[in-house]
C-alpha cells in the first residue's frame, strides 16, 4: 500500500510499505515523490484512467483492475482500492491506496478458459463420433433392433474408453489396460475371462490413439462374439504384441489370433468393423492393419509406429 499527497498535482507517493516495494520491484527511494500513476503499463490508457478516477472519487468495494508494470518491465494485474484520508476539517489531505495482486487469479482464469475450450473441442468431436456411429449403423442395417444394438454397443465402448482415459487424467492410456478395458464386457458377460489371453507391455498411447485402439478392439470382439471364437463354447483369443526395431524406427506389432471357434468364412462384403480396423485405425495411427479370415480362426495384424516415449513406463 501507499499514501499519496492529495494536495499536490499527480498525487505523488509519500509513503510506501515493504509489500508494495516487493510487488513492484522498486526501492523506496525510487518510489517516493513519483506520480501515482507512474506504474501503469499503458500510461495513456483512457479507459484505465477513467477506472482509477472513479476509484478515487467513489472508492467502490470492488476496486479497479489495472495493468501495472514492474521495474523489470514485467506486467501484472492488480486490483486498486483507494480511500481518502481527511483532516479535522473534513478536507482530503491524503489518499490511502492498496493493491491486491491479481496475477494468480488471472492465470487461473486463463487456465480455466483453456480447459473450457478444450472440453468444448472434445465434446464436439465426441458428438461427431456419435454421429458417425449412427450414420454407419443406419447405412449397414435395415432392422431397427439391429440398428439399435449396433449403436448401443459402440456408444458403450466409447463411454468405457472415456472412463479409462479419465482415470488417467486424459494424459495417456496403457495398451494392456485399454485392451482389457475394451474386452471386459465380452469376458465377464459370458464367463469367458480365461478364454481371452492378453500378453504385452503396458505401452502408453496418447488419448486420440487410445480411443481409436479401443474402438478397434471393440469391433474385433463384437465380431468374435457374433461369428468367431467367442460364439461357441470352447473358442479363445490370444492378443499379444511386441516392439520391433526396424529401419523406420520402433514398430509395435500386434496380433489378434482367434482359435477353436467355428470354421471361418470370409464375409461376402466388407463390414464397418473391418473398415474401422484396416482403414480407420491404420490412418489414425499411421500404420497398417490387416484382417486375415483364416479358416481355423480370424487373424488380425496391426503394425504401427511405437508411440514416442513408449519405453518410459
Amino acid at each position: 500500500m501507499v499514501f499519496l499527497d492529495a494536495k499536490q498535482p499527480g498525487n505523488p507517493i509519500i509513503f510506501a510499505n515493504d509489500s508494495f516495494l516487493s510487488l513492484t520491484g522498486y526501492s523506496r527511494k525510487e518510489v517516493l515523490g513519483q506520480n501515482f500513476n507512474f506504474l501503469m503499463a499503458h500510461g495513456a490508457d483512457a479507459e484505465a484512467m477513467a477506472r482509477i478516477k472513479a476509484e478515487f472519487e467513489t472508492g467502490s468495494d470492488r476496486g479497479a483492475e489495472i495493468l501495472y508494470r514492474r521495474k523489470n518491465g514485467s506486467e501484472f494485474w492488480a486490483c486498486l482500492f483507494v480511500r481518502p484520508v481527511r483532516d479535522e476539517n473534513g478536507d482530503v489531505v491524503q489518499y490511502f491506496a492498496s493493491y491486491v495482486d491479481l496475477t494468480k487469479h488471472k492465470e487461473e482464469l486463463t487456465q480455466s478458459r483453456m480447459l473450457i475450450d478444450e472440453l468444448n473441442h472434445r465434446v464436439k468431436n465426441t458428438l461427431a463420433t456419435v454421429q458417425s456411429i449412427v450414420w454407419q449403423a443406419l447405412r449397414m442395417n435395415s432392422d431397427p433392433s439391429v440398428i439399435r444394438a449396433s449403436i448401443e454397443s459402440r456408444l458403450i465402448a466409447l463411454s468405457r474408453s472415456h472412463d479409462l482415459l479419465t482415470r488417467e487424467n486424459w494424459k495417456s492410456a496403457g495398451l494392456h489396460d485399454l485392451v482389457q478395458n475394451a474386452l471386459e464386457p465380452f469376458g465377464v458377460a459370458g464367463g469367458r475371462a480365461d478364454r481371452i489371453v492378453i500378453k504385452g507391455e503396458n505401452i502408453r498411447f496418447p488419448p486420440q490413439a487410445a480411443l481409436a485402439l479401443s474402438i478397434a478392439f471393440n469391433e474385433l470382439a463384437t465380431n468374435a462374439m457374433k461369428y468367431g471364437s467367442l460364439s461357441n463354447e470352447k473358442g479363445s483369443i490370444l492378443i499379444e504384441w511386441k516392439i520391433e526395431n526396424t529401419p523406420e524406427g520402433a514398430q509395435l506389432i500386434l496380433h489378434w489370433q482367434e482359435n477353436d471357434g467355428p470354421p471361418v468364412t470370409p464375409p461376402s462384403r466388407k463390414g464397418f468393423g473391418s473398415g474401422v480396423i484396416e482403414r480407420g485405425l491404420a490412418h489414425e495411427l499411421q500404420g497398417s492393419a490387416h484382417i486375415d479370415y483364416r479358416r481355423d480362426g480370424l487373424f488380425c495384424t496391426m503394425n504401427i509406429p511405437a508411440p514416442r516415449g513408449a519405453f518410459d513406463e
Partner: protein
Amino acid sequence: MLILMMIESMLTDLGCDSVTAAATVDKALALIETQVFDAAMLDVNLKGDNSRPVADALAARGIPFFFSTGNGGHHTMDGYENRAVLRKPFIFEDLAAIFASLC
C-alpha cells in the same frame, strides 16, 4: 477415426470416385505434392498442429478447399476468412452443399 470414415462414406455417397485422407500436416503436404485433387476438406487442427501449411499448399495450387473444425467459436485462419467452415458435428446436406459450391 470414426468421423473420418463417416466423411469418406458420405463423399462416396455424393459420387466422389476417390477419397484420400491424411492425418498429419506432413502427410497432407506429401499427398498434395504427388496427387491431383479436385477439392479438399481441411481440419484446422491436425494431430495438434495448425494446418496452415496445408491451406497454403492447397491455395498455391488452386485446389478448392474448405475447413472443418470441432471448435464452436469464430475460429478462422488469417487470410482464409472467406473459406467455408463446416463445424462438427455436421449435417450431410451441408457437406453436400459446400462440395457442390467448390466443384
